[in-house]
């Protein structure tokens, strides 16, 4: 009974504080929006691209701060700019794409770090790097909600096209759609999503938010719609638990949220019913017992 009481208090006591409600709101919205996008990121294999765009927005965010613009404006400009620059470097030199990505995003990130270190500011711009969800302002919350709503609305309208693009872009082209435009749309959504998430976990950990939930869900299902639902559920749970953990441990919220996501991935990696490591070992062991009976791919469940 006492243990139960302690557990209830673990969850209820932090909610007496207004800042916890706000932090929870931002974490949950950011987690959910990132999780939706993470499904396509995982399927296309864009984790390095996610890393690149999320780091490359830093100078844009700092410049927006200087000019008094919403963060999203600068982030979009630099997010899209970095993608274009990666394309140019890749096409016009013998450097391979992953090296082009590595060079461009670290260069932009470095410029951002320089700017942060040289600009005197009331709000500590270092929070952009590591997140400061326990101290978000009303304006920050409004921006997170607006940007998140834009991303979700676009995804709601375009999700079938995005999945088609991820699955077979030649077919998309062959039926008269424009795969380049879909790619640009997805990268634009990524840039806006980064803005949403950097309030919650900071620029450095944003890439985890746009990869880990999708990768976890991918281990748990073979249906895209379920993958979306699972990714969102995992991310929202991680956001709530992570925010509580950071309160009780007096530790960085972003780190706590991403650490919980990583735990969810580890559990799925090990114990997913069909695609987990344990299930695979079990299947191989069973097959070894029934020697000489190769599995017919068509009769797989």
């Amino acid at each position, binding site marked *: 009974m006492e243990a139960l009481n302690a557990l209830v208090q673990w969850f209820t006591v932090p909610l007496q504080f207004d800042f916890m409600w706000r932090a929870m709101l931002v974490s949950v919205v950011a987690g959910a929006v990132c999780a939706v996008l993470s499904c396509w990121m995982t*399927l296309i294999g864009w984790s390095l691209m996610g890393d690149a765009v999320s780091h490359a927005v830093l100078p844009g965010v700092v410049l927006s701060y200087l000019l008094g613009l919403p963060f999203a404006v600068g982030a979009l400009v630099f997010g899209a700019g970095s993608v274009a620059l990666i394309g140019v470097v890749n096409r016009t030199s013998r450097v391979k794409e992953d090296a082009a990505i590595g060079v461009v995003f670290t260069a932009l990130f470095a410029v951002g770090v320089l700017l942060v270190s040289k600009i005197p500011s009331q709000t500590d711009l270092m929070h952009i790097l590591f997140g400061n969800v326990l101290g978000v302002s009303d304006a920050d919350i409004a921006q997170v909600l607006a940007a998140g709503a834009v991303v979700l609305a676009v995804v709601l*309208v*375009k999700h*079938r*096209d995005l*999945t*088609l693009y*991820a*699955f*077979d872009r*030649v*077919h*998309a*082209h*062959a*039926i*008269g*759609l424009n795969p380049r435009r879909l790619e640009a749309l997805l990268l634009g959504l990524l840039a806006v999503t980064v803005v949403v998430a950097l309030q919650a976990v900071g620029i450095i950990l944003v890439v985890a938010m746009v990869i880990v939930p999708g990768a976890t869900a*991918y281990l748990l*299902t*073979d*249906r*895209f719609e*379920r*993958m979306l639902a699972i990714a969102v559920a995992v991310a929202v749970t991680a956001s709530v638990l992570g925010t509580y953990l950071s309160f009780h441990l007096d530790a960085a919220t972003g780190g706590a949220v991403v650490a919980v996501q990583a735990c969810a991935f580890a559990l799925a990696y090990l114990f997913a019913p069909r695609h987990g490591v344990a299930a695979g070992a079990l299947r191989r062991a069973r097959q070894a017992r029934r020697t000489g009976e190769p599995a*017919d*791919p*068509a009769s*797989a*469940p």
Partner: protein
Amino acid sequence: MTAPARAPEAPATGHPAIDARGLTVRYGDVLALDAADLRVESGTVCALLGANGSGKSTLFSALIGLVPLAGGQVLLHGRTPDRARKAGLVAYVPQSERIDHSFPVRVVDVVMMGRYGHMGPMRRPRAADRRAVAEALERTGLSHLAHRQVGALSGGQRKRAFVARGIAQGADLFLLDEPFAGVDKGSEATITEVLHGMREEGRTLLVSTHDLAGAGELCDRAVLLQRRVLAEGAPEQVLTPERLAEVFGITAPGASARPRHDGQEAAWRR
């Protein structure tokens, strides 16, 4: 496969299905296609034969406007590739290694993707779309597998799923990239049957393949490609030992115009 023959949605314009002249494509310094001419009449099955690197995939890409042309022009049913694509006339059946087999989509989802060009911007399927998909699945013998994930199919079944996508699309011109690669003999026969059924309805098929023996059975016409079109005509005219030696760098023992399938296949697929 039992559904009644249905006329494709393509217009009977009297134009050839493919009319490509002087197609030239460069990748940097590499000349991938050198003034290739190709004319395929509506309602024929045409084999596109050539060794690796002969430009078969590039020709497909050029036909659907996926690579910029350094020279020449393409008309599909008398239309530019762009207009033909927007009209949903062209279906592309990808090579199996180009597809991510673990992608979380079901067969029915893949076939539904053929309908996207007919739908509104949100791609919400209507009754007509569901009907077209069900019909295409039945035609290709996949109805009982409709709710399987694509990776859970055999190579031949997966190939048929992509053919079904083109059927659901209502395409008239099918570009099939190596449809028999990685497919066992039984499935190959099923695919051939499906393709013959499509020809009977007046659809046009351009089939790229290494499989010379299969090409003779499947196709009305054959085109031998080596960056340019070396020969074009009935399969037995095109598949002469001399030409094959020239293109594939091998001599067919017994000088048979239709090489045997066994044993030599590895050499053809070099």
